[in-house]
């Protein structure tokens, strides 16, 4: 079972929910606690709640082209085939723009002079190790200044595979663009965390649309619920979105999270709530 936690809008409580769900499942699956992947590689923070000890680490890089000017005839085939315009032929010079390159290798294949070789260009790191409650933890970190998160997430997911039967929880980045799609792709269920505000609802619509495109069933957790935003309830009804859990807008929760506590640390009854959420998810995916 693979469950992604995403939101659309940032700051709705994805990581609080994802880590609390992981702790709750670890309590009832003590023989095989879940695998947790922090896929928010631009700003990973789940470690603050799950306290992993990282014992393995690997660099992530893209293979980018290097042009041997002695062999290059400046024919321009490489620039023509590059849909990201990451390689340009300028008179008698061929220039590579590493930050535009997606590492597809087309230029290398198309070069009639075999003047292009490829070498890895580091963009981030992935690491893993055991965490609280026996949870297996892994995360990616995008290097500062690197603009493309997706390859780090893709490599993290391939590297940190679940054991047979192990539940996986993917903590997604905010938004609904490529890095979120890369995180959520292949999941059996998507938990969307939202808040009862116009921004929350606006971005929730985008996230629901994305899940529809990917064909992944969705359930909602409404965080900071103060029961006073009918537009959100109307949207849930119109889209037939199940609300799995409502977490009240409460100062004690905010204070606990700010101290690095999960919801289950702050209010232990949430272990039960999250186990029920998991049952609902398991039920809806077995029906699907």
């Amino acid at each position, binding site marked *: 079972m693979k469950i992604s936690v995403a939101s659309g809008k940032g700051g709705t409580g994805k990581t609080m929910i994802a880590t609390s769900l992981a702790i709750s499942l670890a309590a009832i699956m003590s023989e095989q606690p879940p695998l947790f992947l922090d896929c928010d590689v631009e700003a990973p923070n789940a470690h603050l709640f799950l306290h992993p000890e990282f014992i393995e680490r690997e660099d992530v890089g893209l293979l980018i082209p290097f042009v041997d000017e002695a062999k290059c005839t400046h024919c321009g085939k490489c620039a023509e085939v590059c849909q*990201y*315009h990451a390689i*340009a032929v300028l008179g008698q010079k061929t*220039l590579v723009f590493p*930050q*535009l390159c997606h590492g597809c290798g087309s230029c290398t294949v198309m070069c009639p002079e075999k003047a292009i070789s490829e070498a890895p260009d580091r963009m981030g790191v992935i690491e893993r190790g055991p965490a609280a409650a026996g949870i297996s933890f892994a995360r990616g970190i995008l290097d500062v200044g690197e603009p*493309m998160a*997706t390859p780090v997430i893709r490599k993290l997911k391939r590297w940190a595979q679940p054991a047979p039967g192990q539940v996986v929880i993917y903590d997604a980045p905010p938004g609904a663009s490529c890095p979120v799609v890369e995180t959520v792709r292949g999941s059996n269920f998507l938990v969307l965390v939202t808040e009862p505000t116009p921004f929350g609802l606006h971005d929730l619509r985008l996230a629901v649309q994305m899940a529809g495109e990917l064909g992944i069933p969705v359930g909602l957790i409404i965080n900071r619920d103060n029961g006073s935003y009918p537009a959100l309830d109307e949207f849930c009804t119109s889209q037939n979105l199940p609300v799995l859990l409502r977490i009240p807008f409460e100062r004690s929760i905010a204070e606990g999270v700010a101290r690095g506590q999960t919801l289950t640390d702050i209010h232990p009854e949430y272990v039960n709530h999250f186990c029920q959420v998991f049952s609902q998810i398991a039920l809806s995916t077995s029906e699907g």
Partner: protein
Amino acid sequence: MKIILTTVSPNLDSEIDPRFGRGAYFLVVDCDTLVWEAHPNPGVDSAGGAGSLAAQFVANQKAAAAISGDFGPNAYNALRSADVEMYLFGTSRTARETVERFNAGLLERVGAPTGPGHHPRA
């Protein structure tokens, strides 16, 4: 001497377009005779790398100088490799006025990227 300007419409009396990679047209002008031709920017809708694509277009035209309102790091490095000089529109409003000011030596020459990149890989 051949120079290239970014313009909003395809003629010498067009308004200037301040974006190098995303300008609507490239106006290729002979600054001595004012003979010109306009080309639509091939990178105007590209998902990324518009600056490097535009620079490649300019280099292929064998222009001596490019005039625009903004040269990002990719465009700047590419144009410098191609030995194309870069200038800013400054207060010019039309292409014709820009060419006149260029000929009079009134345009500011660019010696470094004028801002951060706009469309990195994503």
